[in-house]
């Protein structure tokens, strides 16, 4: 069993014909920083407590897929909708998906010390989310390790520090090159073709 089986198939609530498919390793994800987001001492970088332990535990820590989000969508779906709860936007930080997925954690089980995947990144889109939405969460293998609550809490605390480490400095969203609506449309076509091809290959093999 892989550490993050849910990464292999789309988590879009409408199914495989919608959204952009599973998050690939070569993508970049964006974390929006608001007034109320906790950051490091000088406010230039994310800190462990920028991330919600509770959200990571149920794989709902929200991120945006940089390749599938227009600036307009970012402003409307993230900045405006987050304003009431989190205050005004301060900036954004980004991370490479393969780096996030390469994070490892040492856990001590009955069979000794094991190095396991720390974090999963999913294309989780629930009702009301935009299609370029992604989520991060602790890898299932950590949850399955049957650690005590306190040991699990310590492992999770270390992982959050590491997640903060791999995100970039906080910068203005104006410094990004956001894809155009046309590019996003083309990527939707590509994702539909990919689903068709996958179905075709599967039928060839069966």
């Amino acid at each position, binding site marked *: 069993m892989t550490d993050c089986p849910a990464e292999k198939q789309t988590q879009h609530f409408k199914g495989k014909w919608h959204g952009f498919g599973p998050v690939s390793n070569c993508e970049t994800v964006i974390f929006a920083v608001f007034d109320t987001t906790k950051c490091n001492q000088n406010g230039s970088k994310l800190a462990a407590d920028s991330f919600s332990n*509770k959200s990571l535990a149920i794989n709902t820590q929200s991120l945006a897929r940089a390749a599938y989000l227009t600036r307009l969508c970012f402003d409307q779906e993230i900045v405006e909708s987050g304003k009431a709860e989190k205050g005004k936007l301060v900036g954004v930080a980004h991370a490479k998906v393969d780096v996030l997925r390469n994070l490892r954690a040492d856990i001590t089980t009955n069979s000794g010390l094991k190095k396991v995947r720390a974090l999963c990144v999913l294309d989780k889109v629930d009702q009301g989310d935009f299609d370029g939405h992604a989520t991060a969460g602790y890898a299932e293998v950590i949850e399955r390790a049957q650690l005590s609550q306190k040991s699990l809490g310590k492992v999770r605390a270390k992982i959050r*520090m590491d997640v903060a480490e791999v995100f970039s400095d906080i910068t203005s969203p104006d410094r990004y090159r956001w894809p155009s609506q046309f590019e996003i449309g083309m990527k939707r076509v590509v994702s539909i073709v990919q689903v068709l091809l996958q179905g075709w290959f599967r039928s060839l093999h069966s």
Partner: protein
Amino acid sequence: MPVLAKSSLMLDIPTQSGKSEQRFAPVNVTTTGGVLASSAVNLLIGASLGIGLHPTSASDLNAVLEYFIGASLATTADQNTVQLTEPYATTEISFKAERNIDEHGVASRSSLAKIIIAERLRSDVDAECSAIADAAKQEAVAIVQRWNLSGDPRVMFSDDGVLTLQWQRDEYGVALIFAGDGMASIAFRRPGQLYAENGIDVAINENIPKQFADAMAALDRDN
């Protein structure tokens, strides 16, 4: 019962940014017998203690007073009232009392210990995990005082009550993680190595481990 002082007790709380915040609110101080500097003083807590506390909660009140004067309190049957078995009286005198603590042999808190206690007051820990957070805080304060730790670490309580102290500069860092289980987890950050991929566990009553001392010294040296 004569009211000896009725004022807004504004006190400085150190924060992680290095600045202090003026917080806290009305504390009415009265004596039980009208004798100042006697053995028993009741602190009647006013409408708001700020920082999201429930002012009538004895445990929160204990934490507030622990932070300021390092004394533990015996609560009375009336949860609004606590009995402080030290000769502290009016607002003015309570400040003096802070200075008097050393004379009375009560250990004064280091500034880092005060930050940890203040952060616990501010923290948003799940109710069912508050015992873990309180135990973690006690362990952290004990280690900080005994190992004589200082600096400007990031102090973080997570919703599950786990407390992390993180000292970091660029790609070098060291973290102490407490979960109230009698053990402190120490994790290191170096170029090419992240916190979750390494670490040692030490019992709270152990002496400072060499790896930790070396890592802290390296951070101090480079600052």
